[in-house]
């Protein structure tokens, strides 16, 4: 049975903990529990925020390697020159002001038995509950000839930051009539609509600055998310500028030749003025090191609570977790963070855990005044997180311009509100 979402289990966990030396006074119903969070991205930062909102007495430590967080959502607009990276950059001062113990350090190990987390800086943090939200790591090993060194010549820009700016510079330096290749990796990966939104944003830049240029998407998959909407918008906004090759038509990358700077697919060797190689992905490295991952490279969880099915007392949220039908998005990470917080707050205050609410909403902006969205509502079913039938869905195809404009504007407001929720 998959129903280990109950109080008994939490009480059990706490019961044992309170007997361990160094944990005096921790009893069931204690509001003084210690929660450590690994990773201050959308998942981790929002978990910290809601813990302080609903259980100010809980001691929250947020361990994050970087002093600044750069939002991937809307970072494709940087490529088109529609916004700068500053508008996507956030700090952790608000968390500190609310009483979160923010520590900027690299987590190097997790001891699930002793319930401690160790950092590069040589510190140890003991926890009663651990939330692991490290995002993604790149799995270059999955493709012959690929390796992290190729980032020097083939950028990913799949973690927003320096590479986003470099990719933009490459676009600016490219000749009119040039070609860009974007690869869309093995599923699942962070932000399913991302590569196609990126293609559109690049085309948006080309349209105004080098209109003879083209974008070629080499896809591991046979379909793309929001397919009808993307295809409609490309045709309307960027006719003839974006070509998509699905996996079953030769889009799959079989091998990389770094010396020649080529990608080998069933169609033969491919090269371009710019290669934006989005690598295959897996859970952030610390999740691998802590043994939280399975053969898939991602972290299996109990869909009722996001608790690791490998190590009890550890909750994995966001991109790193196996979430079945739920895509890897910031919005989904936010909803998972709240599920975990609700569970921890309920248990530490001796109340029943509320029904978990898993939702996703993802706005895509393909150019100025042109947006569309997907909504998903999910629930635990048969040990998995599955889409609730009849709920959620896509923006309509063939919608009038006003609706596309409104959705782009709502998308910007979503960004403002979710980044405020996470960092401000």
């Amino acid at each position, binding site marked *: 049975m998959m129903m280990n979402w109950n109080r008994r289990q939490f009480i059990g966990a706490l019961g044992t903990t309170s007997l361990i030396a160094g944990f005096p006074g921790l009893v069931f119903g204690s509001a003084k529990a210690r929660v450590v969070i690994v990773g201050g991205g959308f998942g981790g930062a929002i978990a910290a925020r809601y813990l302080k909102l609903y259980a100010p007495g809980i001691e929250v430590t947020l361990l994050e390697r970087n002093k600044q967080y750069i939002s991937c959502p809307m970072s494709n607009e940087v490529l088109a020159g529609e916004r700068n990276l500053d508008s996507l950059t956030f700090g952790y001062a608000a968390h500190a002001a609310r009483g979160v113990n923010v520590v900027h350090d690299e987590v190097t190990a997790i001891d699930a038995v002793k319930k401690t987390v160790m950092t590069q800086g040589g510190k140890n943090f003991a926890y009663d509950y651990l939330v692991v939200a490290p995002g993604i790591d790149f799995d270059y090993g999955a493709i012959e000839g690929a390796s992290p060194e190729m980032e020097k010549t083939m950028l990913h820009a799949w973690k927003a930051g320096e590479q986003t700016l470099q990719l933009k510079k490459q676009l600016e330096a490219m000749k009119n009539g040039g070609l860009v290749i974007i690869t869309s990796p093995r599923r699942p990966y962070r932000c399913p609509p991302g590569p196609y939104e990126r293609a559109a944003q690049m085309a948006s830049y080309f349209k105004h600055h080098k209109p003879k240029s083209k974008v070629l998407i080499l896809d591991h998959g046979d379909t793309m998310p929001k397919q009808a909407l993307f295809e409609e918008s490309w045709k309307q906004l960027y006719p003839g500028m974006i070509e998509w090759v699905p996996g079953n038509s030769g889009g799959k990358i079989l091998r990389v030749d770094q010396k020649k700077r080529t990608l080998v697919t069933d169609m033969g060797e491919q090269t371009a003025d710019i290669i934006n190689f989005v690598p295959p992905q897996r859970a952030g490295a610390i999740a691998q090191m802590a043994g939280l991952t399975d053969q898939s490279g991602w972290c299996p969880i109990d869909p009722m609570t996001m608790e690791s099915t490998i190590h009890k007392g550890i909750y994995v949220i966001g991109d790193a977790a196996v979430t079945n039908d739920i895509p890897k998005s910031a919005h989904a990470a936010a909803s998972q963070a709240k599920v975990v917080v609700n569970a921890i707050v309920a248990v530490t205050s001796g109340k029943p855990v509320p029904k978990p*609410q898993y939702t996703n909403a993802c706005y895509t902006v393909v150019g100025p005044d042109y947006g569309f969205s997907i909504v998903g509502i999910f629930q635990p079913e048969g040990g998995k997180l599955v889409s609730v039938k009849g709920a*959620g869905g896509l923006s309509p195809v063939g919608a*009038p311009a006003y609706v596309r404009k409104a959705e782009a504007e709502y998308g910007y*407001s979503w960004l403002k509100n979710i980044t405020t929720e996470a960092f401000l």
Partner: protein
Amino acid sequence: MQKLVLAVVCALAAGPSLANDPNIVAIADTCNSCHGINGVSAGLTMPSIAGQNKDYLQRVLLEQKKGERYTTIMDRFMKNISDEEIAALAQYFAAKEWVPATVAVEMTQANQGRQVLRKTCQNCHGEKGDKNSGDVPRLAGQWPGYIRLETFKYVDRTFTAKKPSERMAEKVHNLTENEHSAVAHFLGTRK
């Protein structure tokens, strides 16, 4: 699991105290990534929903769920939420404090907007645009970007089939683009 379902059912039957039910709060928190924490939006075009009157919220959410009201996204979000939960959500957000938007005043626009409000809107929305009862939501302090997107629906023919208020449509569909923007701006600057 069994026990929990039972708890939810009991809570729903209990009525008034529903808004504090952790199951309802958990649903309400899923709204925050779009509408802002506690329903107070920081996004220029996303409506704040905290502090709108319960009747309005409940009616609107039900209309969205049933597809009786034009929305870009809310209909897709509400489909899985029961009518009882909607009643509780309306109560939950209605009980929150209204926090006005922060909008820098642009004098010429604001003055023009004040006149439009007096002439065309105040009968229904109140002298300051802050009437908030029955079928009318508060406009004073709402984001101008959102107000503008909403009033557009009363003008564009695409939306006539599912236009939210017949009685308002009659009054506002003749306003110029300038008048629309001005009144939205003025309302947004009110506290």
